[in-house]
């Protein structure tokens, strides 16, 4: 089988990977940009965990207000995951829907806050 390779520059999908140890737990964060979506993976298990569809809508109610919708597509629907998803939706200044993958060993509030802050400090949505 002889396949002609397309020019490499066309195939680069912009993405960003960072990693930290949060209270001793390896935490990998990876963000890939697509035209119509952001794919954000946050994992302490090096696996894709619960997949959540996160979208933002603007409604006019005493001025423009953002409304966030979270929907678990795969995995357990857990409150702390929905909470983190909403917090991320508020703090990521991108209007595209986000496909969020969450696999956490440590679901304490201080870890969730740390994850939120790391994503903001590292501007994970800026992949280019």
């Amino acid at each position, binding site marked *: 089988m002889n396949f002609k390779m397309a020019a490499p520059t066309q195939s*680069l999908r912009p993405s960003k990977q960072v*990693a930290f*140890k949060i209270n001793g737990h*390896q935490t990998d964060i990876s963000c890939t940009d*697509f035209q119509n979506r952001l794919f954000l993976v946050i994992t302490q298990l090096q*696996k894709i965990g619960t997949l959540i569809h996160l979208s933002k809508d603007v409604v006019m109610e005493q001025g423009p207000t953002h409304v966030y919708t979270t929907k678990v597509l795969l995995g357990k629907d857990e409150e702390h995951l929905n909470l983190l998803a909403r917090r991320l939706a508020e703090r990521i200044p991108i209007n595209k829907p986000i496909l969020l993958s969450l696999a956490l060993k440590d679901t304490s509030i201080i870890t969730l*806050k*740390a994850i939120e802050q790391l994503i903001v400090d590292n501007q994970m949505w800026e992949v280019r």
Partner: protein
Amino acid sequence: MTAEILPSESLLSVYNFSGRLKETDVNFHVLKLHDSFMLWIGTEPAKMDDLSMAMPTRFDSMPLGTQVLGESTDLTSTSLAQKLAKKTGKQVFVSFNMAADSELVLRVEERVMEEMMMNPDKF
């Protein structure tokens, strides 16, 4: 009280490759995780409208496959995820984002298999 945060080395990795299949430039993006990977397939502009997951189970020789995002009437990504899960023994996510007739789907599958053979450590 705040969490202790230390920098660490990434255990995930990404890999991009492409192929010219039936007069179409097809792009592939792999996110490698532990015993699992996510494979995005599409053309420019790169969209993500579809996602399937498959994983081997003890109960059936055919891996369990499910559509996570996208049209449940199009089984392309689920079928490919199942084939790759069976081949690798890993949990596989496939996102297939282009119009393709059965011949192009076959070429895409062959291109993936070819790349897996040349660069198995990327998956």
